[in-house]
């Protein structure tokens, strides 16, 4: 969207909202207005940075070793003549992490197409299977190797958590992939997968926002993308300006959140100790 069009649309939305508000904001849950303003401010920050990036502004992103290692891992598999195993998590496409995992799969599929390495993607959900197939098919086509892709590259195992872990372990032990990538939402099966991958000598790169599983991946894998690094993976691998702008916007929002935490602590201290100011916690509590 061009700048002029963008500002027209944004301005129009703002005017419409102002009119709605002054006409009595019918049906609007006023208790949640702080959350609404937060969403609008965060969204605006992200959009601002995305547009700046699209206009050609260069943003610095710190290097993430795990993402640099993805291409090395695929290269290693090519040299050894072994497949790349990609596990997009055990949850369905309603989880943001799974969608992020499928997006990273697209980039990995481009690399495997380029290097002519075989790719194996066992999945735990049928909808993920369809989405992952489309992503891989597109990637192979973009690399000019549609002949290398067939539907069974992405195949369904089972919905059950531990049955899936058993199935993936079996694939690892039989096929001995040289690289194992775990990108998505994981639960208790994470350590089972990572330890088995370690035992076959594969290079392992994990990325997840599942807080409880991050320590297990950090312990057992060669590289781990922790939390937001995993969500930023798509920006890193594609180097698309709009995605990099989004990552920068995220960091700006984080600075804002840190500032609010410090100010809230100060205001709360003043209010509870000496009654100065107002109850900031009540203002920020989501109803």
């Amino acid at each position, binding site marked *: 969207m061009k700048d002029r069009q963008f500002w027209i649309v944004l301005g129009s939305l703002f005017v419409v909202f102002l009119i709605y508000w002054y006409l009595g904001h019918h049906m*609007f*849950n006023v208790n*949640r207005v702080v*959350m609404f303003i937060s*969403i609008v401010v*965060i*969204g605006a920050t*992200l*959009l601002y940075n*995305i547009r700046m990036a699209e206009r050609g502004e260069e943003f610095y992103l710190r290097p993430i070793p795990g993402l640099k290692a993805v291409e090395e891992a695929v290269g290693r598999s090519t040299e050894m003549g072994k497949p790349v195993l990609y596990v997009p998590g055990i949850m*369905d496409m*309603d989880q*943001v992490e799974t*969608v992020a995992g*499928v*997006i990273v799969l*697209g980039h990995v599929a481009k690399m495997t197409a380029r290097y002519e390495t075989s790719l194996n993607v066992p*999945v735990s*959900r*049928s*909808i993920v*299977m*369809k*989405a992952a197939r*489309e*992503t891989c*098919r*597109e*990637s192979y086509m973009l690399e000019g190797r549609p002949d290398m892709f067939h*539907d069974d590259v992405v*195949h*369904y*195992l*089972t*919905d059950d958590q*531990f*049955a899936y*872990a*058993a199935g993936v372990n079996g694939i690892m032990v*039989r096929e001995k992939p040289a690289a194992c990538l775990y990108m998505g939402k994981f639960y*208790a099966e994470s*350590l*089972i997968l990572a*330890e088995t991958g*370690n035992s076959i000598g594969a290079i392992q790169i994990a990325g997840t*926002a599942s*807080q409880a599983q991050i320590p297990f991946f950090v*312990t*057992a894998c060669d590289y781990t993308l922790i*939390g*937001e690094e995993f*969500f930023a993976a*798509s920006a890193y691998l594609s180097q698309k300006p709009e*995605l990099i702008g*989004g990552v920068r*916007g*995220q960091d700006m*929002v*984080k600075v804002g*959140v840190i500032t609010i935490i410090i100010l809230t602590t100060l205001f709360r201290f003043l209010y509870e100790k000496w009654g100065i100011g107002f109850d900031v916690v009540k203002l920020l509590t989501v109803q």
Partner: protein
Amino acid sequence: MIWKRQIPILIVAVVGAITLFGWFIDQPDIKSFVDDDATQWYDILASFAIILGALNLIKIQFQKVAKKKKGWPYSLFAIGGFFFAITAGFFIKSLDNTVVWGAHVTTEGTLSKWIFDYMFTPLSATMFSLLAFFVASASYRAFRIRNFEATLLLVAGIIIMVGRVPIGSMISSWFIMYISVLAFGIGVNSWKKDKMITFGVVGIGIVIVTIAGFLTGWPIDQPGIFYLPILQEWIYFYPNVAGARAIMIGIGLGIFATSIRYILGIEKSYIGE
């Protein structure tokens, strides 16, 4: 082409916007959509989509058997198990046929319940129990004192592991104090590299701890700072929660930013673009 590109992006944008902003609207139909219908539509789609996955699974296993690929006898188990479970769920209720359809899955005496109790439960428990062994081998491999942070991780890990279990409450805080004095002595030795100073520090430390013990009567859980269960509770409540909160906030922001990119159509890779 419009069906594969523009329509999916439009659906994501419209449904995403309604679900996001619908939370602020006090209108029963929108609330019902946001709270119930949206998720239930997804569940209905996912339930029917299972057929796709099941067909793919059976197709691959049949191909393995038909082409006698490596390991094809195991595929017979997969196919057999698949049809056995379908039979138990859809065709056989119970021997006396008194159980209602639907309730037959969990009622005692039915084939479904038998599969759950004698096949699924032991297999699930076995897979989960692998974690115990893998945690041991992963800890053994990963917990090395390479630098200050790794040492801190190791010490915190040991305190939590021992303090969480009953044996931790049987270890006196005075024992931990003596260990601390020795560890401090090792630190002094690395710094000063003088045996006399090290011996002096350790000796004085041991004497102080011993005198304090005699004066207080060696209570097992005092001083609390050296009692493992209290120490592990403190680690859980403060440093652990601080780190967990920080990661949660970061992950929450990451999820929000990623979702906004999907809703606004900036990120289109999930449809293969």
